[in-house]
């Protein structure tokens, strides 16, 4: 998988592409932790180009959200979630734990 990050004034945008499974999740985890380790906790994660996400990837989203929301310092929001990924989030009851946006513009603007 490929992860691209861009730091904006209000938040960081992370774009993930490809498969997020046990063998690739570290790439995403490293990108997200680099942001939070630098004291930045407002993250928009664009999943449009994610073809598959396993429970390992979902676990990373949960962990990052917990980190970001601690002490109300920020949050992780999801952008352009593919239909199949959205169905899995719903199935596991994870949808209420994340704000979900149809575009990066909306997500960034809401921070």
């Amino acid at each position, binding site marked *: 998988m490929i992860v691209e990050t861009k730091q904006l004034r209000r938040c960081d945008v992370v774009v993930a592409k490809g498969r997020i499974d*046990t*063998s690739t999740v570290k790439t995403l985890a490293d990108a997200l932790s680099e942001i939070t380790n630098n004291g930045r906790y407002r993250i928009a994660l664009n999943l449009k180009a994610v073809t598959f996400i*396993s429970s390992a990837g979902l*676990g990373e989203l949960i962990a990052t959200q917990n980190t970001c929301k601690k002490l109300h310092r920020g949050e992780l929001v999801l952008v352009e979630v593919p239909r199949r990924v959205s*169905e*899995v989030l719903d199935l596991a009851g994870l949808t209420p734990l994340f704000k979900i946006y149809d575009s990066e513009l909306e997500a960034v603007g809401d921070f």
Partner: protein
Amino acid sequence: MTSSQTLTMPGYFKNLARIADFVTTAAADACLDAKAVYAVQMAVEEACTNIIEHAYGGEGKGQIQIACIPKTEGLQIIITDQGVAFDPDQIPRLDTTASLSERNRRGMGMFFIYNLVDRVDYQFETPHGNQLTLFKKRL
């Protein structure tokens, strides 16, 4: 109806993508719809991850065999390993209503296996090894 296909791979996480390709092709060939194909892919992914992590206790310690058998009503998948058996009933159930702070980053695999396919059957320590049989109906 297409014929049965079998893939045997060493238990490495890097092989999950190859296994996914194999299973999604078989599911599509069995005329499962896109949602069902993704569901089967994820159930198999979670099962294979569990085999590597728990049955074998790590990567590179055994093989995983995946057999895809088209049936009149859908697709049967049999996943076989030679690792350690476990009791599925001892795995804590996922609470889908849990709050963020109550969520664990791990432990969702079994939930997805049971909830993404129509039938799940574990058989341990058979002459062939441990076997997980999944069945996904064609709608």
